[in-house]
């Protein structure tokens, strides 16, 4: 390890160190002043964000090429750090209100973000695995953070079992690829494949296992079965963070590994990806219709969103489309994150103790009583649907556009038709909020409402001028060799 290595990963190193320190510092913060921990954690994230933005999009390698920090990583890191900040803002009041406030929450959150960042840096399959675990393990604990609540504990255990299950697939895949190429660093793997020294069978099976593992992580059908339970059972502030962060990290891994190392087998992968994408879009949306619990509905909705992202990924093997594939997925992640965090903010604002007020029917009258929050939620729902004048429109537009560019018009058609299905259940929330009578009560917490309103504002405002963001996403290229 040289000093240069350390400087290259400075944001990550800082965040990890901060998380560790926070764990210690928190021990001496009295129980009734855990808000201080939250502020410290947010400060750490903010500094990391600053460090990340300050370094720009140029590419650097460190630790003998085991990590590479490039525009792709920086772009995703900004999303992760932003969602981390939002995660803290959402948790700040929620944890107090539900009596599960403990300082570890914030340390765990920082560790998770550190894992996500490492995932974006990873240029070695072993690092990918480590990052995956680093981000998952704290999340398992966070999912069960509402201790003594059966729902939360079950969610945590399910998440843990399925998460560990998927990790073993990733690991076995890595081992097989190592076996096929004698290397674990992505460039080395590529070199071995190009040099013809790789064992094609091991390589293909390994890649498939990685796909399964990442599929689990980002809740792609048919590897999604944990997601609804976990999203529903976890404390909402965790779910909000998880639906954004963990999913994005799963896709980050998918992108990095497949784009860099698995170009050569894209012909084999494309039909599989096609089927997975179609299945996820279709299944996620269909199942979401039947839900009456808002957390569960959002869970299935988020599964469906994975399908859309996967759709743009199908043509990853086409050199001409690749740039758009990456940019489209990155851009969509921004749109998805904003709307998701915002929607969860509304859910959290409405949620009462003991999982009350989480049925969609509980949203009746929200739009009349709290028009701003209702409007914000409407914006998020429309953004998920992909209606114009929300950022979600451009996000889906770009994804569909990429699919069409790659020649997968049929898949794009599936995606569009399922969007139509999704409109039905998204609209139902709007229907309840505005068109049914009801008297919901809201927790008046400034941070939660700020998160909702800022997200809504960004979703609309950025949709009018998406140019800079799109350019930023297009410029966020991976260090490819």
């Amino acid at each position: 390890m040289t000093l240069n290595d350390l400087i290259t990963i400075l944001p990550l190193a800082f965040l990890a160190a901060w998380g560790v320190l926070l764990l210690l510092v928190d021990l001496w913060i009295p129980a009734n002043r855990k808000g201080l921990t939250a502020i410290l954690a947010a400060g750490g994230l903010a500094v990391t964000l600053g460090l990340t933005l300050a370094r720009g999009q140029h590419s650097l390698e460190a630790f003998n090429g085991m990590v590479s920090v490039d525009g792709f990583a920086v772009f995703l890191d900004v999303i992760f750090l932003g969602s981390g900040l939002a995660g803290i803002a959402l948790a700040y009041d929620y944890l107090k209100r539900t009596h599960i406030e403990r300082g570890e929450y914030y340390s765990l959150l920082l560790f998770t973000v550190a894992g996500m960042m490492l995932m974006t840096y990873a240029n070695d399959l072993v690092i990918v695995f480590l990052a995956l675990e680093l981000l998952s393990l704290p999340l398992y604990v966070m999912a069960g953070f509402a201790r003594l609540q059966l729902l939360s504990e079950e969610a945590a255990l399910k998440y843990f079992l399925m998460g560990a299950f998927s990790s073993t697939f990733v690991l076995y895949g890595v081992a097989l690829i190592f076996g096929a190429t004698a290397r674990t660093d992505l460039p080395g793997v590529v070199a071995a494949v190009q040099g013809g020294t790789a064992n094609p069978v091991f390589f293909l099976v390994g890649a498939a296992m990685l796909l399964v593992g990442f599929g689990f992580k980002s809740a792609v059908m048919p590897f999604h079965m944990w997601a609804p339970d976990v999203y529903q059972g976890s404390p909402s502030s965790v779910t909000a963070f998880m639906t954004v962060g963990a999913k994005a990290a799963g896709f980050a891994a998918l992108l990095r590994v497949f784009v860099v190392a698995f170009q050569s087998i894209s012909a084999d992968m494309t039909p599989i990806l096609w089927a997975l994408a179609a299945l996820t879009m279709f299944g996620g949306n269909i199942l979401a219709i039947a839900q009456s619990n808002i957390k569960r509905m959002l869970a299935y909705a988020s599964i469906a969103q994975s399908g859309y992202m996967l759709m743009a990924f199908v043509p990853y093997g086409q050199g001409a489309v690749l740039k758009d594939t990456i940019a489209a997925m990155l851009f969509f992640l921004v749109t998805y994150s904003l709307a998701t965090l915002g929607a969860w903010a509304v859910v959290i604002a409405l949620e009462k103790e003991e999982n009350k007020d989480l049925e969609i029917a509980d949203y009746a009258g929200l739009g009349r009583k709290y028009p701003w929050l209702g409007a914000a939620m409407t914006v998020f729902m429309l953004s998920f649907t992909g209606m114009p004048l929300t950022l979600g429109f451009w996000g889906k537009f770009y994804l569909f556009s990429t699919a069409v560019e790659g020649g997968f018009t049929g898949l794009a058609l599936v995606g569009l038709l399922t969007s139509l299905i999704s409109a039905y259940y998204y609209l139902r929330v709007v229907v309840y909020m505005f068109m049914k009578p009801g008297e919901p009560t809201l927790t008046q917490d400034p941070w939660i409402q700020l998160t909702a309103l800022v997200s809504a504002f960004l979703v609309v405002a950025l949709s009018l001028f998406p140019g800079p963001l799109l350019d930023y996403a297009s410029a966020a290229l991976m260090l490819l060799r």
Partner: protein
Amino acid sequence: MVLNPILLMTFFPLVGAAVILFFKSEQKSAIRWTALITSLVTFGLSLWVLAAYGRQDVGIHRLWFRIAGLPIHFHMAVDGLNILMVLLTTFLTPLAVLSTWKAVEERVKGFMIFFLLLEVGMLGVFLALDLVLFYIFWEFTLIPMYFLIGLWGGERRIYAAVKFFLFTMAGSVIMLLAILYLGWNAKTFDLPALLAARDSFAAAQIPLFAAFALAFAIKVPMWPLHTWLPDAHVEAPTAGSVILAGVLLKMGAYGFLRFNLLLFPQASLQLAPWMAGLAVIGILYGAAVAYTQKDVKKLVAYSSVSHLGFVMLGIFALNAEGLSGAILQMVNHGLSTGALFLMVGFLYERRHTRLMESFGGLWKSVPVLAALALIVSLSSMGLPGLNGFVGEFTILTGAFGSAALGSPWFAGLSTLGVILAAVYLLHMMEKVFLGPITHAENRSLPDLSPRELAVILPLLVVIFWIGLYPKPFFGLIEPGVAQILAAVQSAALALH
């Protein structure tokens, strides 16, 4: 750029909506007046656009941003195809706003904001000349309309609103796919550039045509995709129905003119008989079903299906008479059906029912209303001297002589529709206004108030104007029609 009349007109309602946002919900009359003044100013601005029409620099055309390297332009311009639509929109909006004075009492603020947003969307749809921009406006109109129906509608408003939303969206998602396909093949979404690059997607004309046609046909609505319409109309508040019938439906027909015919002339020629066939079925079916309705509003709604069948027939006659007749008929339908809905709304405000059997003999109690309703009905039937006649006659002339249709039978059958229209409209007139007063409540109904007269009279003026002197309107349409004809003729040459 700010002083660009098109831009100013399109987005001026936003200013009004923003102002309304600052009022308290209780300040109803302030909100109403702001909305009315805004829409009137918008109408004034549209007259400025009319004055500027024909000048080159009147449009706005600049790069918005690039997505995946494909440029998306902010391209709006006024031409022969959309000038009348724009005028119709800005003309109907203040009238519709005025009609809500008494009808909408709850949540006036939200209503007016949505109404003004809707106007922005509609103007945008007509003026946008970039496919993506067009799509944005097209989809955007759904949202305010959805809320207008869902929040201020009748009993089954939620069902109607969702059905409206999903039906329309179903068409448009497929259109989006076609737009993306076009974009990747021609490397642009800008309409003039696409027209120049027509060859790049010549191979896929028919599926592309179908994709666009589906979206537009649902909106028009063409038979058999019309089922959302009666629900939406019946449940929508009066002003909503007026705008829905008057403007929103025209967006579909306009889409056919602007995109299907211009982008895919060959496919249009090949598929013209099929489309016209559907149109004829729509004419007859709409008329037949209208006759059986007991609810006046539903009757008017089905009459829309029938009338828009004429518009479609005219469009797919693909000759000068058919096209200009269709465009004019779009305006006519907006005027007369809009007026009919207003009449129904007036009745509903008085009696809170729309069933024909609850009325009867109203001529005696509300003579002015009855007389005006008669005029409007006659206009809708196509009585010579009124606007409907001019439009329908031109369309039928075009359809008789159409080379694209290749058979006079389309026109022949459609004539039947004219007769049927007379039957069901007169049937309604008789049931509602003539005969003895059967219900006691109907004896002492108030006649039209000055405000209501102010709503209805401008419409009548234009109805008579078009009926008696349509030439200026045809003049405005002509360049657009010529453009389409040129495209169709070159396609016809290429086909043979």
